[in-house]
């Protein structure tokens, strides 16, 4: 018994500073003017994603992801990004395809949930090209929550006693009231957060339907936020149902109108995932040469996301995926507000 109590000295690197004063200074100078932020995905990525930035992708890997931004990051050959990998599946697969990142906070990577593992992402991670620090899904959500709260850390009761602890950058602390040993999770302030939503106005006020995943936290902790939206609406539409609002305008830097912007991922209430195409990704990844041709066809060889959608069958394929979507909006009786508590 107790022959191998894991070390409590974490060896993982902290990729982002949890310095709240620095973050407050940044947020202090961020403009509050309600200006038109509508732009193309290409412009949003050139202006707000820089080589070396630390990126957080909203949604859940293959559900409500900002695919168009991820493709554009690959197409613009952004390099040396940092990445927050909370259940990163298809989003991770896309960025790994472009070899866009060299450091990663790991909670769930390489895997594709029930769709298996990504062969290319595995090769990339096993090559030693990416520095990794280990966390868990709750830890990454709470790290962004600490940042959203403007606090340098949040205590939590996970990870303790495991090898995740050893390879994380977390620390242990003693509760000043109870003496309880706790994990201290450092605040995570990503340079850029990218989030796909159901509706937004041109100023950045945005709303989503269905589960919020970690997007309240990602949206509020990120220094710059790129929103892609299925539907562009008037601000009055946002005001009709404010309980659904994810972020108000002054947190948002860019709004891009991208219909089917989560494709081939699922967009709740809009369209289901394209399982055939997701399988095509995994199949193409088996062989590096085949995969290069696949990427040339679908990402490097097209000038924008719309052309990719056209290659995949355009409106007629999207209509099929809309039919497969199990969630329907009840216009008479609005959906309950996103968020809420247990």
């Amino acid at each position, binding site marked *: *018994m*107790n022959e*191998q109590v894991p070390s409590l000295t974490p060896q993982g690197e902290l990729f982002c500073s949890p310095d709240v004063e620095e973050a407050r200074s940044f947020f202090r100078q961020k403009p509050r003017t309600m200006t038109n932020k509508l732009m193309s995905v290409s412009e949003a990525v050139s202006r707000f994603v820089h080589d070396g930035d630390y990126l957080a992708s909203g949604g859940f890997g293959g559900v409500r992801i900002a695919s168009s931004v991820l493709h554009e990051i690959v197409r613009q050959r952004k390099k040396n990004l940092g990445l927050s990998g909370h259940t990163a599946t298809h989003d991770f697969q896309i960025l790994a395809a472009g070899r866009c990142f060299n450091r990663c906070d790991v909670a769930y*990577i390489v895997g594709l949930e*029930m769709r298996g593992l990504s062969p290319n992402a595995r090769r990339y991670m096993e090559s030693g090209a990416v520095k990794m620090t280990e966390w868990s899904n709750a830890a990454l959500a709470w790290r962004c929550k600490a940042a959203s709260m403007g606090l340098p850390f949040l205590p939590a009761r996970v990870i303790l*006693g495991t090898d995740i602890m050893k390879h994380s950058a977390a620390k242990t602390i003693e509760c000043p009231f109870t003496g309880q040993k706790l994990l201290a999770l450092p605040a995570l302030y990503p340079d850029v957060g990218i989030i796909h939503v159901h509706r937004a106005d041109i100023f950045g006020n945005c709303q989503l339907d269905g589960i919020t995943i970690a997007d309240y*936290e990602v949206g509020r902790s990120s220094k710059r936020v790129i929103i892609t939206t299925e539907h562009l609406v008037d601000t009055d539409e946002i005001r009709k149902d404010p309980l659904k609002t994810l972020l108000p305008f002054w947190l948002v830097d860019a709004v891009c109108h991208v219909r089917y912007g989560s494709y081939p991922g699922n967009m709740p209430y809009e369209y289901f995932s394209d399982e055939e195409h997701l399988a095509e990704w995994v199949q193409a990844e088996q062989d590096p040469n085949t995969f290069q041709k696949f990427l040339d066809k679908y990402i490097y060889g097209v000038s924008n996301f719309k052309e990719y959608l056209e290659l995949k069958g355009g409106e007629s394929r999207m209509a099929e995926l809309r039919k497969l979507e199990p969630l329907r909006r009840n216009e008479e009786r609005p959906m309950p507000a996103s968020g809420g*508590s247990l």
Partner: protein
Amino acid sequence: MKSNNNRYNLMELMVCVAARQLEDSRTAVIGTGMPLAAAMLAQKTAAPNLVILFEAGSVAPKLRRLPISVADSNTQTDALLLSGMDIVFEACQRGTVDYTFLGGAQIDMYGNINSSMIGTDYDHPKVRLPGSGGANDLACLCWMTLVITPHDKRRFVKKLDFLTTPGYLTGPGARERAGLPAGCGPYKVISTLALMGYDPESKRMRVESLHPGVTKEEVIENTGFEMLFLDALPETPEPTDHELKLLREEVDPLGLVIGKAGQ
């Protein structure tokens, strides 16, 4: 996967046995694949009021189709609450979630799980696996952890290559000493060979019943650590025709989990 007879395959056996471990009117955060098939089957049999939560934010949906992701639309149909990861994990941390149900690449005698890597050098893994996802969080915070996994020596190991998700760590009291919530931890393991629980004194894995046709020797042969056995060892009851019908026709009609052989 080989079948014991022609009536059901081993995936079907595991899912049916797993479903029977979940009591009615409990709360459970469930992962995709076999754990979810088991929870859905439990709702259709002995546990109609089992509350299923998904770590991505859906709470108490009426599941119609087997979700592919713990966030996809099929997790959200007719839910009582659509929230976020923080809300669900915080419910676990507060002590309101009874079960979690996980898979894993390797498991040791204290129920610790590895889902991070195969190999001994962290910086150069032989195989990089996904990592914790929400598994570490759920096994730290939910009252009872169930695991479902095929049974062989590569999976039931003496020493994990990486301890991703805590079981009883190094034995009695180790979780509490590490700072994890008191009084929770591994509860059951459902494998292709047996149903296992944990010895209350030593916190070591212990076989509670052998699946039909499986011998004690077979379990020993396929386990990399010293397995404990109950003195009087019953046979796991076979899946009933009713369970198999529900599983094949309502829970997993596409054979995503139980395979095409099940139909």
